[in-house]
């Protein structure tokens, strides 16, 4: 990392084990810059929530040190860290009204009443719930409760807000709407957010940077577009977005590109990213929208015969599954434009792709 200002949060060699046998987090090093929206993304059990809990102070780190504004905080109890947090099921206090919920962090900070009211109103306005101060949490819809939870985590002006899968309980439309709202709040306030989710589209929508977790290790830490366009290993390529995998063996390396013999037959020229030497196994990663159907002969370095297995009409595009190079789960997205090729199941077609779009990564098997 070459952040010019000092990072707000720094994880240094953090390890965490619950039972003394298995490491849930293995040697984590991570910097979160001031004002950044950083998402920890990963499947369940990958250690992302554990990292968040260690940062919030609810779980002690087994080894290593976490720094907040360059101060070690391993021994600082949660209530002295001054970190706002939004919980998965909101954790609004049911016996208090919305305004009382928001007032709670201000009361424990011994703020006087006019100041409290000013901040509560400001926070409620921010989440467009100005009229809801007297409601009880039970009288709110899921989306409103979520907004109150966000307002409560921000009302005392923390430098850092943690969000633990805050949108998990909402339905799809509301979730997308809330993603934009949280993103705008983050942009307007300039607060630093560490966000945990297992939903990749959520992560791609909101984040400045995404840390993809698997097996207690950050697989890749990058801005959303890099993560999608330039995955560094097979796990990330597979986890983020739709991905075609072709397994094979490297037969020749030539500068930035390499030649791979695919297991089902066929020789592919690929962009070498994360590979061993000649003879090593590799996973070729190829986004479905980067594959052309029936290209002009010779226009692309990789052109193969394929057989159409399945067509799924999805409105804006047609998801076409073809069998190519012995892999019958190869997906091609054909845009539903006026001059798209009309295919039928069983057709023989040609598929082709560029060297840069086909990334040779570590062998995942």
């Amino acid at each position, binding site marked *: 990392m070459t952040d010019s200002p000092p990072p707000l949060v720094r994880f240094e060699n953090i390890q965490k084990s619950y039972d003394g046998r298995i490491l849930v987090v293995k040697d984590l090093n991570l910097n979160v810059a001031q004002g950044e929206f950083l998402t920890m993304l990963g499947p369940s059990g990958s250690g992302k929530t554990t990292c968040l809990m260690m940062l*919030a*102070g*609810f779980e002690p780190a087994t080894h290593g040190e976490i720094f907040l504004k360059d101060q070690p905080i391993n021994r600082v*109890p*949660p*209530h*002295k*860290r*001054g*970190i*706002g*947090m939004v*919980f*998965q*099921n909101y*954790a*609004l*206090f*049911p*016996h208090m009204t919305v305004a009382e919920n928001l007032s*709670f*962090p201000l009361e*424990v*900070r011994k703020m006087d009443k006019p100041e409290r009211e000013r901040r509560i109103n400001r926070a409620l306005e921010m989440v467009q719930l100005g009229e809801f101060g007297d409601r009880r949490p039970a009288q709110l819809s899921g989306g409103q409760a979520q907004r109150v939870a966000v307002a*409560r*985590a921000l009302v*005392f002006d923390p430098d850092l807000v*943690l969000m633990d899968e805050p949108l998990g309980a909402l339905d799809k439309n509301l979730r997308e709407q809330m993603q934009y709202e949280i993103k705008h709040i983050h942009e307007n306030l300039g607060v630093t957010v560490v966000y945990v989710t297992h939903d990749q589209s959520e992560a791609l929508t909101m984040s400045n940077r995404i840390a993809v977790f698997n097996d207690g290790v950050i697989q890749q830490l990058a801005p959303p577009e890099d993560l999608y366009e330039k995955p560094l290993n097979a796990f990330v390529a597979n986890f983020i977005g739709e991905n075609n995998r072709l397994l094979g063996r490297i037969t020749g390396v030539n500068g930035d590109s390499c030649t791979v013999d695919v297991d089902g037959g066929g020789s592919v020229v690929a962009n070498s990213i994360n590979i061993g030497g000649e003879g090593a196994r590799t996973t070729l990663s190829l986004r479905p929208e980067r594959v052309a159907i029936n290209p002009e002969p010779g226009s692309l370095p990789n052109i193969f015969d394929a057989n159409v297995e399945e067509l799924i009409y999805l409105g804006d595009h047609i998801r076409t599954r073809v069998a190519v190079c012995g892999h019958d789960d190869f997906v091609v997205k054909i845009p539903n434009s006026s001059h798209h090729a009309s295919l039928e199941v069983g057709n023989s077609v040609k598929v082709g792709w560029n060297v840069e779009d086909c990334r040779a990564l570590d062998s995942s098997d």
Partner: protein
Amino acid sequence: MTSATATDANPAGTGEVMTADGVPLRISLARARRRSRNRALLLVAPLFLFVLITFFIPILSMLFRSVENQIVGETLPHTVEALQQWDESGGDLPPEEVYAALVEDLRIANETKTAGKVGRRMNYEKSGFASLFRTTARRIKRIEAPYKETLIKAKKDWGELETWQVLKRESDAYTLSYYLAAVDFSYTPTGEVLKLPDDRSLYVGLFWRTIWMSLLITVLCLILAYPISYLLSTLPVKTSNLLMILVLLPFWTSLLVRTSAWIALLQKEGVINDLLVWVGLIGDEHRLTMIHNATGTIVAMTHVLLPFMVLPLYSVMKTIPPSYMRAARSLGATPFMAFVRVYMPNTVPGIGAGALLVFIISIGYYITPALVGGQSGTLISNFIAYHLSISLNWGLAAALGTILLVLVLALYILYDKIVGIDNMKMG
């Protein structure tokens, strides 16, 4: 298949919606609902009858018994009628007709052997009545006119104004004298209400003692049960199940066994006293009296009733997500403040249910105070039992029981007003 839809299949044109076969929808719906309602009623009928026969009817009969007084009017009908003409405050004995009526009534009573009963009833009002009626009835054959003179000669109580005043006062079919007795008041012979002197007052003190001891037991149960329930609700399931069994084990043990165990522990030569003497905290001659008094009752009842507090508390605490406490901590509250401001208010339904349960059970508790209560640790229920089974003054027992019932209902309503009964969670 007819083409008519539900709405236009209405020959009368009244605007009523009809079903496909022409029955008004409203009637058809009511019919369908009645069928399922009848089935539901049939299912609860056995329980309803059981509760009615074994619970409501006995309680109503008990309530009735606390005011019922028909025995005087039934056994001495002529006397009661003749007494109506007599002015009890005039200072004169009743006239000859009243005495004649009494003799007639007692003749019949002697044959039907009911004189003893009315004597026992009247004895609650004034001691001496039992033997007065018994002896007079036995000698009734020898009583001749003029009845007034011979009766007074046979038993000189018949010549006392008070005897007749009390008899006239209690000749109504209903009386409040049981209730007056239950709150340490009594009638004067002429029917004025008077507080009993302190040395004869008993029940009001007992009611107060019952209430404060029940309150103390409730508070002690709450103090003991709260941390246990918290532990149970936060431990992993495997450990908490084991602990729950430890909480419930005494619950499944016979009440007598548990109470006797407390006797073994607390008595003068018991384990605790022995231990204290052995350690040297108290001298052998100053052994503590911890049983057969209020202390014994409180200790044993707190132990017996503890599960009733633990179970509702536990069931409420289990539903409080740990994220509440975490949220409070992350918002800047110290652990203590998070507990007081966030955790505890959420356990109020459990506190309410447990406290109400323990209080209501202990206010009517009988066995434990009877065994370990001694003089200072007995409760009102012990006296109700005494009047039911030993003194056989069922009227007074019923009056005491009714007051207890009203007390509990009043507390229940109070609780509903303050906390709200909807907030209660039993389990």
